[in-house]
C-alpha cells in the first residue's frame, strides 16, 4: 500500500515537472544574472535635461537610448531610427540645413506605448521651454530653427545653417511625451518631475527599477526592447573612493570598474580574473604652445624652434618609464584619440637631439655667453613650462628639464593648483593671461567623438579683457587655419568634413602648433565572470543586451 502510494506520488511529481518545463519553454525570454558596476561619482539627475554628468550619460545606454549609439569602433549605428542620415540616403539635405530621421516602427517605450515623432518634438520643446531650468540647450538654441513631425515615423530637424556636429548632439536622448506632458501641464515645469529621479518609463534593453541615493541604481531587463537582454539586472554601486573601488574590483565585488589610472593596471590584473581595457574618450595629454607675440617668449614664434622643442623631447621613453606605452602611446595630433579622426599618416616627431640643436643653431639661438643656455640678441632661451600640481606631470617636467638642458634650452618649471590653472582671463587664469610658453594638460575636443575644437585655435577666441571667456589661450591666429576651422563647422557630411580635418591636422603638424604627449584613454576593469562586454568610447555600454554573467 505504502509503496503504491509512493510510486503514485512520484509519477504525479514527474508529470507536474514535465508540464512545468513545457509551460516555461513557451513563455517570454528568460533573463538571468546581475552585472555589478562601480561608479566613483553618483549621477545628480537621470533626466538628461538636468544633468551634464558623464556618469549620468553613460547609464542611458541601459534605459534611454538615443537615435543612434556608437559601437566599439566608435561608428554610429541606428537605435531608434532605421538608418543613420546621410547625403546619399536623403537624410541630410543638399544644402546641409535639414536632417530627416526615419523612426523604427517597432520601437515602443518600456510600458508598451508606441514611440513617435511627437516624442522628438516634445523633447525639443522641453529643452527650449523657459519654464524648465535645463542645464544646457546646445545645440538646439543656437543652431536649430525648428523640429517637426512630418508623420508619426518622420522627424525633420531644420538648422539655421549647415551644422557639422549633429551626430553627437542631436537627439542623443528622447523624452516620453505620454509620461511627461501631463506633468508639464499640471506643474508648469519638468523641474520637479518624479520621472527625473525615478524614470520608470524608458527605451532601451533595461528599464529603471530603483535608485537609492548614495547607494545604488538598479535597472531590470526590458522584454519590450528590440534587442532583448540576457541579464536580469544591472546594479550600479556608488563607490566614491578610488582605493576602495580598487579593493572591490580585486575582491570580485564588482564586474566593471570605471575611471581607473594606468598605475592601477598591474595590481588589478595580478589575480588573473580582471582585465583592464581602454576606450578612446578624445583626451590626449597635450602641450599647448604659446605663440602670442604679446606674451610668449620670442623664440616660440619661430616654427623651427617649436620643432626643435618636439625633437629635443624624448616622449617615447617618458611614456615607457612613467606610463604604459600600449595604453598611452605618444600622439601626433590633437585628434589621435578621437576615433575616425586619428591620422595614421602623421607620426609624432622623433627624439632627435642632434637635429634639434641644428635647428636652433639655424634659428640663431646659440650659446654666445657660454652659460650652457642658448641665447639671441641678449635674450636667454629659458622657457616657462607650466602645468598642474599632479605628481605625474611634475615628474614629466623634471625629465623634460634634463632633456632640454642637453640641447641648451633652459626651463622655468611652474605648477598651479587646478582651481586656478584653468581660470578665465578676468579671474587671473595663468594660461588665459599667457603666463607660460608650454602648458601641459589633458584635453579633448568639445564633444567627442565629434572633432570640433575650433575654440582653442580661432583668432576670435583669443582671451583678452574684452573676451575673458575666450578659449584660445595660445594666441594662435592664422588666416588659413581660421578659414579651415570655420569651414568644417558647417559641413554636415562626415566624409567631406574629415577631408578638411586632414588639412587642419597637416597644417598644425607642419607649423608645430601642438605637441602631443600621450593618448589618455578611459580605463575600465572587466571581471572575467561578465562576458560579452565590448565597450566603446562615446557610448560605453552600447551592447549591454549581449552581456552575460557566469558563476
Amino acid at each position: 500500500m505504502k509503496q503504491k502510494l509512493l510510486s503514485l506520488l512520484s509519477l504525479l511529481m514527474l508529470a507536474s515537472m514535465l508540464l512545468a518545463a513545457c509551460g516555461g519553454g513557451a513563455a517570454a525570454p528568460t533573463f538571468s544574472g546581475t552585472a555589478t558596476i562601480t561608479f566613483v561619482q553618483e549621477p545628480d539627475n537621470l533626466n538628461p535635461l538636468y544633468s551634464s554628468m558623464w556618469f549620468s550619460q553613460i547609464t542611458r545606454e541601459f534605459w534611454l537610448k538615443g537615435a543612434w549609439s556608437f559601437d566599439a569602433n566608435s561608428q554610429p549605428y541606428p537605435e531608434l531610427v532605421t538608418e543613420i542620415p546621410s547625403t546619399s540616403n536623403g537624410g541630410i539635405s543638399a544644402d546641409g540645413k535639414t536632417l530627416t530621421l526615419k523612426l523604427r516602427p517597432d520601437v515602443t517605450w518600456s510600458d508598451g506605448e508606441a514611440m513617435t515623432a511627437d516624442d522628438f518634438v516634445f523633447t525639443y520643446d522641453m529643452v527650449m521651454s523657459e519654464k524648465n531650468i535645463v542645464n544646457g540647450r546646445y545645440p538646439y538654441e543656437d543652431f536649430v530653427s525648428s523640429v517637426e513631425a512630418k508623420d508619426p515615423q518622420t522627424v525633420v530637424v531644420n538648422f539655421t545653417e549647415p551644422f557639422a556636429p549633429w551626430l553627437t548632439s542631436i537627439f542623443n536622448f528622447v523624452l516620453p511625451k505620454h509620461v511627461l506632458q501631463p506633468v508639464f501641464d499640471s506643474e508648469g515645469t519638468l523641474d520637479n518631475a518624479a520621472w527625473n529621479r525615478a524614470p520608470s518609463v524608458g527605451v532601451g534593453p533595461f528599464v529603471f527599477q530603483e535608485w537609492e541615493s548614495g547607494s545604488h541604481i538598479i535597472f531590470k531587463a526590458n522584454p519590450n526592447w528590440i534587442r532583448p537582454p540576457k541579464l536580469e539586472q544591472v546594479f550600479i554601486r556608488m563607490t566614491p573612493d578610488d582605493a576602495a573601488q580598487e579593493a572591490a574590483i580585486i575582491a570580485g565585488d564588482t564586474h566593471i570598474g570605471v575611471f581607473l589610472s594606468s598605475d592601477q593596471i598591474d595590481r588589478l590584473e595580478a589575480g588573473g580574473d580582471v582585465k583592464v581595457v581602454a576606450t578612446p574618450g578624445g583626451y590626449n595629454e597635450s602641450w599647448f604652445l604659446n605663440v602670442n607675440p604679446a606674451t610668449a617668449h620670442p623664440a616660440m614664434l619661430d616654427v623651427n624652434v617649436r620643432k626643435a622643442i618636439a625633437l629635443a623631447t624624448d616622449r617615447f621613453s617618458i611614456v615607457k618609464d612613467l606610463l604604459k606605452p600600449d595604453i598611452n602611446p605618444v600622439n601626433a595630433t590633437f585628434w589621435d584619440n578621437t576615433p575616425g579622426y586619428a591620422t595614421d599618416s602623421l607620426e609624432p616627431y622623433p627624439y632627435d637631439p642632434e637635429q634639434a640643436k641644428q635647428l636652433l643653431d639655424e634659428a640663431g639661438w646659440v650659446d654666445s655667453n657660454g652659460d650652457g643656455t642658448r641665447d639671441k640678441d641678449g635674450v636667454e632661451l629659458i622657457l616657462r613650462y607650466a602645468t598642474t600640481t599632479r605628481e605625474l606631470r611634475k615628474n614629466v617636467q623634471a625629465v623634460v628639464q634634463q632633456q632640454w638642458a642637453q640641447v641648451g634650452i633652459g626651463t622655468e618649471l611652474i605648477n598651479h593648483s587646478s582651481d586656478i590653472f584653468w581660470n578665465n582671463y578676468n579671474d587671473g587664469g595663468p594660461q588665459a593671461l599667457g603666463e607660460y610658453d608650454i602648458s601641459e594638460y589633458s584635453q579633448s575636443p568639445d564633444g567627442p567623438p565629434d572633432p570640433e575644437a575650433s575654440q582653442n585655435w580661432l583668432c576670435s577666441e583669443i582671451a583678452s579683457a574684452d573676451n575673458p571667456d575666450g578659449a584660445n589661450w595660445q594666441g594662435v591666429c592664422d588666416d588659413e587655419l581660421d578659414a579651415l576651422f570655420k569651414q568644417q563647422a558647417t559641413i554636415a557630411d562626415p566624409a567631406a568634413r574629415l577631408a578638411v580635418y586632414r588639412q587642419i591636422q597637416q597644417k598644425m603638424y607642419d607649423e608645430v602648433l601642438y605637441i602631443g604627449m600621450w593618448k589618455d584613454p578611459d580605463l575600465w576593469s572587466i571581471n572575467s565572470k561578465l562576458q560579452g562586454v565590448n565597450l566603446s568610447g562615446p557610448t560605453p555600454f552600447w551592447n549591454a543586451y549581449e552581456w552575460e554573467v557566469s558563476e
Partner: protein
Amino acid sequence: MTNYIIRRLAQAIPQLFIISIILFTLMQAFGDPVATLGARNPPRPEEKERLRRQLGLDQPVYMQYITWLVGNDWQKIDMDGDGVPETPGQRKGILRGDWGNSLVARRPVLEMIGERLPNTLILMITAEIVIIILSLMIGLVSALRPYSLFDNIVTGLSFIGYSMPVFWLALMLMYIFAVNFRRWGLPYLPTVGMFDPAVGKTPAEIIKHMILPLTTLAVISTAGYSRFVRSSVLEVLGQDYVRTARAKGLKAMYVVFRHALPNAALPFITLIGLDIPFLLAGAVVTERIFAWPGMGRLFLDHTERADFPMLMGILMLISIAVVIFQIITDVVYSFVDPRIRLE
C-alpha cells in the same frame, strides 16, 4: 524645570538665526555652483547667465538669504531673461518648512536628507553604543589596576589606535578582511556598500556590511574615550569620600559602581552630549571608503558641487541638533548629579 527648558529654547532662536547668517555668508566662498553643472563640458557663458538667473543666483546675497529664510512666493521672477519678472516665485523659505531644493539634484533638500539619515544613524548609533561600552569597560579596568600589565598594553594600543589615520585603518581592514581573506580561502567580509545585490537588502546583509566600517569607527574613538574614562575614574578613586566608603568596609565593587562611577561619569556625559548631534553628520571618511550611503557623503558630494541649499540644510540640521542636545545634556545632568538644580 519646564520653565528652564522653555527659556533655553527661546534663547536658541536668536542663536540659530545668527548661525544661519554666518553659514550663509560662508557659503559664498564655496565657489560657483553653476560652473560645475556641466561636469566634463562646462556650460557656455550665455548658458551660465541663464542658469544663474533662473536659479536666482544673480540676486544679491542678502536677497538670496531672505529667499532661503522666508521664501519668494509673494514676488515674480524673471525666467525668460527679458528683464520683466513674469513667473510667480515658488519658494516658501525655511521658516515655513521649505528647506529649498538642491541645485544639482533639483530635489527638495529635506527629502534627500531624509533618505540618508537612517543609513547614517544605523551605523553611527551602533558605533556610539559599542564605543561607550568598550571605553567604559577598558577605562574602568585600567583605572582599577593602574600601571598593571593590562593597563600598559591597553595604553599602548590606545595610542596606536588614536594616532591611526581613519582612511588608512579603513583601507587596511578592507584589504585584510575583504580582499586577502577571500584570496586565502578564509571566511571574508564584503568590501563596499550596504548589501550584496544578489542577496538583497536584508538585515543580515546590512550587519555583515557594517562590521568593517563599525570597527574602523570603534577602534579610533574607543582609544580616545577609554583614556578619558580611565583618568576621570582614577581621579575620583583618590577622593576622600571613596576612601571613607572603603573605610566603612563596603565591598570594592559596590564602592566603584555606587560611589566612584556616577561621579566619574559626569564629564563623560558632557562629552557624549556634545558628540551625539554630530552622529547626524555621519563619518565623512569612513562612509566614503566603505561606500556607505550616509550623511557624510551627502555633505561631501554636494560640497564639491558648491550646492549651498543642501549644505545649508545639513549644517542647520546639525546646528539645531547641537542646541537641542545641549539642553538635553543639562537636563540629564540634573538627574545624575543631585547637586545641580535647574531653575
